[in-house]
């Protein structure tokens, strides 16, 4: 397939403040939808560039070719000023226009319309209201709605990311959450100890993670609203790799208290522990399946790491990956139809992110430009995979679509960024 390369097209995140992550689209798709987001009618001074955020969201999805406002023939602010012929001339399929007004008590109201140029009709209209602090959320909501209207897939621009940043000396670790475009970073935990494997609760209100202290690894759960941190597991040996059950009531994790890393499930209310696997090889990296009855995990039982699925109740285990020397840290995409995992084709080969179609048994390597790719995490709509990789000797975040067609880099300005975890839908 012909792929349009938008190499090193740097899309700066629109906030003028120091958003640490920027986004580079390194590969888009040939069949992307031409769309124009016309500058909105705004009050004199706007704290956020709403339509700029929408433009970046849509562009970053890889599904859209977004026209620059400089290339537009006019900037219509209302339906009356919109001339469909102008936009046909520019080969645009869709146009978004909108206006923002200030309401009393510091509230803003955003009204936008999406027009189908070919059929000359409005196909979406929405009015959203919020405080100044919520303007970015409103922008992402607009992106979500436009994306869903035109692709049939629910948008995930409003979802959050969690990741870990480190200084070059690796003496300070920050657990950070941000918007899906890397803006509005918020440090939720700082430690001199290494933090890894952040995992979102299904309601997006808690994060489980591992902290590697001098005495060993421990698993914590932190409430994001209050910052309250609770110790879940500090047994002898490894305590690691947390994954929430789909209902959020249980946590799967890896413990080696009985001598060897095994998968366990703990009920977070009753603190009842259940051992799920029992094998002398390494068993780790559990991830709950949407049915709540199965867990996928990595095991070295065949000699090198491969992905397996276990029925929690019966303990029945099935091997899922057969292709490649090293398959690990699998995550599920699209209701469990796909696995996304860290893949090494043969010993000594580079580590890349691959997807495995569980119905057809087809493995596809998705990444090629980055190396030491790890920690894949799937967007809640199952479209994009965020992962960590080495790029120019630094650890950065990158993203690739589950079909491999769209590729993005999120270079950070300083230090290393690792361990991304894409949060759930929040609305």
């Amino acid at each position, binding site marked *: 397939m012909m792929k349009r390369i938008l190499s090193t097209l740097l899309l700066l995140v629109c906030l003028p403040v120091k958003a640490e992550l920027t986004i580079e689209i390194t590969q888009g798709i040939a069949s992307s939808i031409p769309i124009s987001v016309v500058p909105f009618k705004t009050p004199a001074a706007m704290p956020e560039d709403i339509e700029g955020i929408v433009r970046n969201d849509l562009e970053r999805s890889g599904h859209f070719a977004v026209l620059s406002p400089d290339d537009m023939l006019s900037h219509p602010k209302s339906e009356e000023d919109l001339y469909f012929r102008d936009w046909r001339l520019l080969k645009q399929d869709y146009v978004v226009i909108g206006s923002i007004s200030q309401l009393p008590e510091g509230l803003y109201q955003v009204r936008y319309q999406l027009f189908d140029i070919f059929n000359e009709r409005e196909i979406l209209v929405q009015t959203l209201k919020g405080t100044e602090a919520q303007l970015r959320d409103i922008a992402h909501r607009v992106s979500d709605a436009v994306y869903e209207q035109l692709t049939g897939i629910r948008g995930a621009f409003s979802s959050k990311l969690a990741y870990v940043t480190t200084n070059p000396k690796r003496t300070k670790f920050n657990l950070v959450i941000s918007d899906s475009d890397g803006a509005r970073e918020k440090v939720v935990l700082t430690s001199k100890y290494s933090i890894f494997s952040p995992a979102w609760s299904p309601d997006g209100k808690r994060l489980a993670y591992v902290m*590697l202290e001098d005495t060993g690894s421990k698993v914590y759960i932190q409430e994001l609203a209050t910052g309250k941190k609770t110790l879940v597991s500090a047994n002898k040996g*490894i305590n690691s790799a947390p994954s929430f059950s789909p209902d959020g009531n249980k946590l799967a994790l890896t413990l080696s208290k009985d001598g060897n890393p095994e998968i366990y499930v703990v009920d977070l209310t009753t603190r009842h522990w259940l051992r799920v696997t029992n094998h002398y090889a390494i068993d780790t*990296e559990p991830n709950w399946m949407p049915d709540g009855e199965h867990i996928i995990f990595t095991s070295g039982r065949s000699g090198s790491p491969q992905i397996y699925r276990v029925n929690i109740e019966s303990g029945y285990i099935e091997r899922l990956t057969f292709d490649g020397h090293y398959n690990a*840290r699998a995550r599920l995409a699209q209701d469990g139809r796909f696995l996304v995992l860290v893949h090494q084709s043969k*010993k000594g080969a580079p580590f890349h992110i691959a997807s495995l179609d569980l119905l057809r048994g087809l493995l596809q390597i998705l990444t090629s430009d980055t190396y030491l790719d*790890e920690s894949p995490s799937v967007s809640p709509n199952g479209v994009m995979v965020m992962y960590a990789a080495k790029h120019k000797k630094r650890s950065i975040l990158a993203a690739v679509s589950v079909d491999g067609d769209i590729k993005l880099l999120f270079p950070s300005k300083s230090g290393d960024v690792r361990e991304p975890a894409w949060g759930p839908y929040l609305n």
Partner: protein
Amino acid sequence: MELNKLFAVSLLSLAIVGCASSGGTTDEAATTETSAEESQTQGVPGTEGIDVVTEEQAEMAANPLLDQTTIYFGYDRSEIRPEFKDVLNAHAEYLVANPQARVVLEGHCDERGTVEYNLALGERRANTVKRYLIVQGANPSQLESISFGEERPAEVGGDEAAWSKNRRAEISYQAR
């Protein structure tokens, strides 16, 4: 069960005493290495400055293999390479001769592969060393293993030169 608990408590207190007297834990091996060298080059002090050399210290000085506290592993491997058996045998002998000695075995990995799998692999490396020392006569209660996975590299770098130094187990004496 009760006995175990009692034993664990006494072990803990031993570990605490060990830490307090040495004033540091992980650097201890390195310190002994340099002080041995210093004593060779310094002039003979007056009679007041003479230290009593304990038997363990004498033995320590006698076997230079004990100065080697790191052993290395192959990629994705956790078995002991033949060239490190002499080193581990020396440590085992020391542990047998000094039942009060306590050791933490730290397992480490290079950056390739996943963070969690490497955490497990690091533990495997530490445990392989632990088992080897037990087979050679060390008491299990003298040994504790811990994994730092790929999180605490000895050398930062993205090539085999750095990786080979990071795939390691460190023998860290908590008490001599």
